[in-house]
């Protein structure tokens, strides 16, 4: 359970963006109610993305709510630190990411309650170089009649969520930070405190494992039509 940060109004000066003379800010916005409105108007359109991102990171609705609440509380408390209002979204997501990573590290430091007790060390996993495209692609078929198209037509969001959630923590974080949140490899390296090469390696393995799981899901669900799947059976089985 993540607790919301203690709030002490005395520590909260006016945000720089709302201070006198700040460009584009009306004088009336310096009133407390306007400060709150300014914050809430910018927060509201981001709520679904904040929660969705938190959900992918934590895999748990309660934990996701906790880190969103923690991040929003911190953002509200530190609004004065935001110098450029155009950066509100990135700033808020950065706070969310840091809230998750701090909580994740706390959990990791408790050996009796690891998040993935049975998961092997992700950097030791032998994923190989599995690619979904290689399994699906048939060079001489038109796109709309292809297995690729059939795969996408039948790929449900829940299937994709389930596959992402099934990734080991380190892999899932790499995928979410880069593909969902748009962080650079360098930023992920700094956020997680791991070498750049490890970021690349985890991303590559995460993608291989994710695509392998999606391929298996598609075959088990029968969304790849029988004769085509059979044609690809040998190719799929050759892959690790």
């Amino acid at each position, binding site marked *: 359970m993540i607790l919301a940060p203690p709030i002490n109004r005395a520590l909260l000066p006016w945000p720089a963006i709302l201070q006198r003379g700040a460009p584009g800010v009306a004088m009336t916005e310096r009133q407390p109610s306007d400060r709150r409105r300014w914050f809430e108007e910018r927060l509201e359109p981001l709520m679904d993305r904040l*929660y*969705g991102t938190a959900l992918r990171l934590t895999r748990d609705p309660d934990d996701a709510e906790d880190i969103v609440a923690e991040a929003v509380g911190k953002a509200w408390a530190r609004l004065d630190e935001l110098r450029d209002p155009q950066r509100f979204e990135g700033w808020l997501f950065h706070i969310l990411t840091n809230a998750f990573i701090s909580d994740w590290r706390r959990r990791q430091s408790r050996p009796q309650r690891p998040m993935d007790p049975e998961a092997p060390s992700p950097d030791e996993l032998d994923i190989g170089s599995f690619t979904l495209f290689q399994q699906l692609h048939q060079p001489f078929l038109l796109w709309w009649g292809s297995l690729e198209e059939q795969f*996408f037509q039948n790929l449900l969001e829940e299937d*994709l969520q389930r596959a992402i959630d099934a990734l080991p923590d380190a892999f899932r974080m790499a995928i979410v930070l880069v593909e969902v949140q748009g962080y650079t490899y360098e930023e992920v390296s700094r956020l997680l405190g791991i070498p750049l090469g490890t970021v690349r390696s985890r991303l590559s393995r995460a993608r291989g494992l994710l695509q392998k799981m999606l391929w298996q899901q598609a075959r088990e669900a029968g969304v790849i039509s029988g004769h085509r799947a059979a044609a690809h059976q040998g190719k799929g089985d050759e892959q690790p």
Partner: protein
Amino acid sequence: MSGQPLTCEEVIERLFDYLDRELDDQQAADIERHLHRCRDCFTRAEFEKRLRARVEATGTAAAPTRLRRRIRALIDRFDDGHDATC
């Protein structure tokens, strides 16, 4: 424009760096030039782009009403704290 055109192997090797915007402008332009003339690599790139977009979309989920209420209460509590200290 850089020297030698990229091979398919080089493009596939750097494809995710390209999609993740990790390449500099020149390197990205080299990849794009190859994708314009190579149907196989273009098809692969489009597949990965499409899957990446689907992964990105999983980062959006309807925030529960309970969470919205909790955040409003958090900010209310902040305001109450301020009133108490005034």
